[in-house]
């Protein structure tokens, strides 16, 4: 009698129970591999999460343990209320600022910069893709900002912001302002947004737009009712990437802000000073800082997986 591989029993529980062993082994191996890869990516975050709940005594403990022995939320409350440190958390002048202003700044700068950058980049990409604006050279030229190490731009731009601009347009201050930071971020990310969206626009056949034009739709109407829905996935991905870039940007935020326009990455760096490092609150702030990005990613993931149903040309 042959061993039954596919039993006739209708209930799924019975079917699963009788699958051959090698199927289980393969499944377990896949799960293990996925687990390992996932752990490698997620371990730093897990560690950060762990430190954020540890008291100072455990911050530098060796051998390191993942789970805190005496978990506390003091690190988090310290962020919002540095004047009343709990327990052994010392007060340092640099770290005596509450984090809310930094969050407010970041929540203003990053989304606005992202929206501006992606909008301008998308429209530029459409022009380059459909009308060949700029010929062969101009679109390539927009990438030059990304060809240099960003820090090379730091000093010239600092001079530009603090010396040249106030002279050109009296009364306009860009240094240590949110507007100044937004403009900076847009300038540096718009080329990226252009090239990323251009790829998606190129994938939309011109015929579809021509068909709409034949019906009498204006170019703008074609853009918004035909092209944009078809590149939704690409736009979502680009928005997320640019948002991550602007939200986590540290170097330029550090150089171009001082007091008023400090963003969250800069604030995180304030927790390390000459006397020591506040690992706990720093980790806690890091966790909090990642929340907006995670939320954004979650909200638009539906659009990221629009499904490229290019099912027209069939064989």
């Amino acid at each position, binding site marked *: 009698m042959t061993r039954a591989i596919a039993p006739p029993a209708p209930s799924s529980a019975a079917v699963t129970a009788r699958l051959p062993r090698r199927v289980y082994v393969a499944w377990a191996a896949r799960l293990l591999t996925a687990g390992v890869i996932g752990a490698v990516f997620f371990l730093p975050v897990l560690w950060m999460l762990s430190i954020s709940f540890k008291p100072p005594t455990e911050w530098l403990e060796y051998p390191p343990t993942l789970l805190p022995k005496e978990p506390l939320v003091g690190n988090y409350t310290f962020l919002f209320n540095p004047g009343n440190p709990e327990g052994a958390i010392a007060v340092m002048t640099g770290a005596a600022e509450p984090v809310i202003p930094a969050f407010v700044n970041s929540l203003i700068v990053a989304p606005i910069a992202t929206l501006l950058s992606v909008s301008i980049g998308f429209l530029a990409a459409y022009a380059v893709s459909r009308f060949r604006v700029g010929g062969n050279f101009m679109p390539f030229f927009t990438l030059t900002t990304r060809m240099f190490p960003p820090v090379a731009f730091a000093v010239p731009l600092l001079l530009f912001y603090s010396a040249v601009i106030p002279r050109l347009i009296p009364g306009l201050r860009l240094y240590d302002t949110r507007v100044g930071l937004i403009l900076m971020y847009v300038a540096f990310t718009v080329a990226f947004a252009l090239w990323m969206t251009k790829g998606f626009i190129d994938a939309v*056949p011109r*015929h*579809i737009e*021509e*068909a*709409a*034009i*034949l*019906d*009498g*739709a204006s170019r703008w*109407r074609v853009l918004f009712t*035909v092209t944009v*829905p*078809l590149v939704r996935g690409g736009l979502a991905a680009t928005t997320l990437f640019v948002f991550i870039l602007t939200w986590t940007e540290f170097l330029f935020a550090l150089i171009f802000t001082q007091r008023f326009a400090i963003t969250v990455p800069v604030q995180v760096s304030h927790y390390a000073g000459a006397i020591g490092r506040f690992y706990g609150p720093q980790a806690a702030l890091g966790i909090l800082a990642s929340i907006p990005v995670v939320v954004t990613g979650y909200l638009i993931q539906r659009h990221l997986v629009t499904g490229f*149903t*290019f*099912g*027209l*040309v*069939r*064989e």
Partner: protein
Amino acid sequence: MMDPPPIIRLRNLRKEFNGTVAVANLDLDVADGEFICFLGPSGCGKTTTLRMIAGLETPTVGEIWLRDQRIDALPPQRRGVGFVFQNYALFWHMSVYDNLAFGLRVRGIAPAEVDARVREIAESLELSPILRQRAARLDLSAMQRVALGRTLVVRPQVLLLDEPLNNFRPGLREMMRGELKRMQLSLGRTMIYVTHDQEEAMTMGDRVLVMNAGRLEQVAAPREIYRRPATLFVAGFIGRPPMNFIETQYHVEDGRAFLGHGRLRWEIDTRRDAIEHQAPSGRVIVGIRPEDVWPAVLAVQEREPAELTPARVELVQPLARKKIVDVNARGVALKMVVPGAFPVRAGQTLDVVMDRRAFHLFDAQTGRAID
């Protein structure tokens, strides 16, 4: 009885792109309700002509008339023509309903009217059950009907189709051709259909317009094109396997006229005058279709020995119901078609018959047919 006036008239139509002539001085009348095919190799100007009629390209010179209105200056949506693209160009992300309604909505037609017209068209094209489906998920036949429906809903007078079946695999193509033709017949709408596939044009069109390098070679019903090609190009383009061509020289000997090539020659009597007038150089290209070259043993009537030409078989290509045989007849390479059961081998010699009445004569200089 007068013919009804043509629905589309092209007058002296010309299109240049940066100095290259894509379409040269085209004149054409298209009859109302006709299915006319524009046929030709890639780059011959057929699609450019179609796009000029649609309004996607502006003619460099010339006029386009729809009935009694000149349309070449009008934007596409005001011309009263519908355009079906290769790959149909449906709006994938929209439902069938929205695809059909798009043109009407852009024209600002009231929603109630839009709904009525969309449903009417959907009904006639059997699209009613799938009105809510997204266009990307349709099967090919449905896509074709939606593409047609989208153009029909704005009630065009003429439909323009740009190689819509181009990307389909062969079996499916034949089926779609039949559907399209049936639809055209039932709708009664004039259709201008561009294709590079001669089988398609010859089976679907009421008339076929053959183009080459921007020039109109011939426009006539398929039978006419096949039996009396007007130019060398048409003769060589239509028909598979292609026509055999033999370069001959016309000469008169003892009062008798001959066309000769090497050791082959044929006496000419009925078309002497035509040849002398239309081919002054004396160089005449003789065309004979492979179907008109027969092994002597299969010829219907007994032939005089003088009419037989000995030939040596070079290559035999068997197909399902026929064989294509390459022969060498006194130095001239010819293809002929024999029934599939006919025994023939490479290296064999046999006599072939070429009926002079099946000869197509062309002036070697101009390429035009001699009639």
